């Protein structure tokens, strides 16, 4: 049997046009499903960005006693800066610390700071990490550094000389983990839902054409001869649905994102081009896969000889 590729393509396109009620139904189903998936993927990108920007604010402060040997401080700073986990280390002098304190913490009643006779704040090293999750590990390393004990402002209680808002970090990670889990669950749920929807649509389409399939059988058409046009049709529908979903997301991104950004300047709400290309690719690939798999499953049920 010479396989007639032209036949299959013509057949699928013609079927697609003639059974437009069914085709439209499948396209709408796939479109909406992929739209939901796309929206949740985009949401996860945005949330990941926000979480990252918050995480970046996590740093370790090493308080240095007044009058510490400055070469010791420099050697500590260098040692820490060389560590793989560390992104940057910055020295903050007593004066700078007071200025920051006055400007940030005491912003609303700076007169209190002016009352102070001498500067009660210690100098410090501000350590920023590449991945804030490693904060505990880094703290251990710093404590093990011999220079640290020499310069720290409370050699009796070394842990008091290190500030890294342990609780904030833990809370933050708890929160971001929850957000991640919830989002993953949501995307998973939507993916399953979409798969069921699509399988359902294809099942209905095949149900509506079961007579036709029976007739093809009786005329001597083999399994693959019958299946291929259905599969191709599924792929065509998926591609159209995916294209529509991507277009919609693109419009939303172009039209809505900037406004939300304006309204919430303190949150980084952008989805960059790479991410949106990736999302598009995921939608196309998963659309086609879902279409194929859904059609194959549905066909298996109704297309036994």
């Amino acid at each position, binding site marked *: 049997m010479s396989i007639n590729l032209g036949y299959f393509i013509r057949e699928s396109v013609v079927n697609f046009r003639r059974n437009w009620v069914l085709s439209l139904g499948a396209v709408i189903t796939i479109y909406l499903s992929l739209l939901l998936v796309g929206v949740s993927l985009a949401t996860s990108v945005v949330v990941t960005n926000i979480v990252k920007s918050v995480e970046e604010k996590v740093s370790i402060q090493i308080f240095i006693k007044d009058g510490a040997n400055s070469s010791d401080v420099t050697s500590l700073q260098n040692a820490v800066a060389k560590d793989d986990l560390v992104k940057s280390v910055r020295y903050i002098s007593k004066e700078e610390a007071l200025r920051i304190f006055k400007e940030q913490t005491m912003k609303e009643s700076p007169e209190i700071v002016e009352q102070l006779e001498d500067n009660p704040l210690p100098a410090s090293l501000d350590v920023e990490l590449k991945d804030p999750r490693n904060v505990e590990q880094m703290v251990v390393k710093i404590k093990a550094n011999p220079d640290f004990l020499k310069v720290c402002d409370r050699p009796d209680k070394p842990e008091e000389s290190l500030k890294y808002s342990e609780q904030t970090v833990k809370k933050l990670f708890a929160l971001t983990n929850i957000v991640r889990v919830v989002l993953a669950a949501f995307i998973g749920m939507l993916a399953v839902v979409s798969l069921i929807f699509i399988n359902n649509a294809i099942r209905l389409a095949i149900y509506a054409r079961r007579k*036709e399939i029976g007739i093809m059988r*009786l005329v001597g058409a083999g399994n693959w001869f019958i299946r291929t046009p259905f599969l191709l049709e599924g792929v065509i529908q998926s591609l159209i649905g995916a294209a529509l979903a991507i277009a919609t997301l693109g419009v939303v991104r172009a039209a809505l994102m900037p406004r939300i950004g304006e309204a919430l300047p303190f949150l980084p709400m952008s989805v960059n081009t790479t991410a949106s290309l990736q999302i598009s690719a995921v939608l196309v690939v998963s659309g086609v896969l879902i279409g194929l798999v859904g059609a194959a499953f549905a066909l298996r049920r109704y297309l036994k000889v």
Partner: protein
Amino acid sequence: MVIGRGRETGANGRGFCYHYASGTALPVPADESRACPRPPSGSFLEVMPRMIHMRNVSKYYVEDKPALVDVDVEIQSGEFVFIVGHSGSGKSTLIRLLLRELLPTTGEIVIAGQDVIRMKSWKVPYLRRNIGCVFQDFKLLPNKTAYENIAFALEVIGKSRHVIRTQVPEVLRLVGLEDKIDSYPDELSGGEQQRVSIARAFVNRPPLLLADEPTGNLDPQTSLGIMKLLERINKTGTTVLIATHDREMVDTMRQRVIALEGGRMIRDQDRGVYGYVD
């Protein structure tokens, strides 16, 4: 009402290798000869002296009420056989068993040496491609035009577009539907649908042609044309099996007649008649 016309046009040899489109053999053009050997070389159904062999075949759709009981039929290659019987006597059931649309409850069925019952399911399409069948309810694909419905039977067996484009209009002309080529089934009259079904059944010149009530929706004149066509097809070597109620036709043709009654074979007669005078 152009069966006659169709036949005549067929006879003036458009270079189409329908042997049975005319009484005389036509010169077969070189590029077509490969596509049109009859019997097809390496065909799934080899030309065997015994085309159909049914032994002790019974079919129970529901318990107690059999549709066929202990039927034994032997049909040789090239025969022309009528099956007659009252409504509900089991004619369609017999045809559906031969097409393996159904499996019998008991008994054995062999078509051209192939055991139909124990046949692997992937082989069934190959069996069916070698059996043309006119269904009682036509079974046309509703989303395809008359042309496409017939072309489908050729596409299934992998014929080239060129072959399809010459043969399909030809068979439509033979059944008198040259001007309904692009009509969908629901734009055709009952008789026209039936003729499309007939055309589809013989377009790929199968070694075995089954026809279930092929003239039920046709007027006597058109029926006669179709019968003559089936007879010509039979003359080229195709085995033809027709279930029918058309007493006039059976009595005119004087061919072998098998009669069923309540699922049992009650008569098998060469050069028979419809029977039952009432």
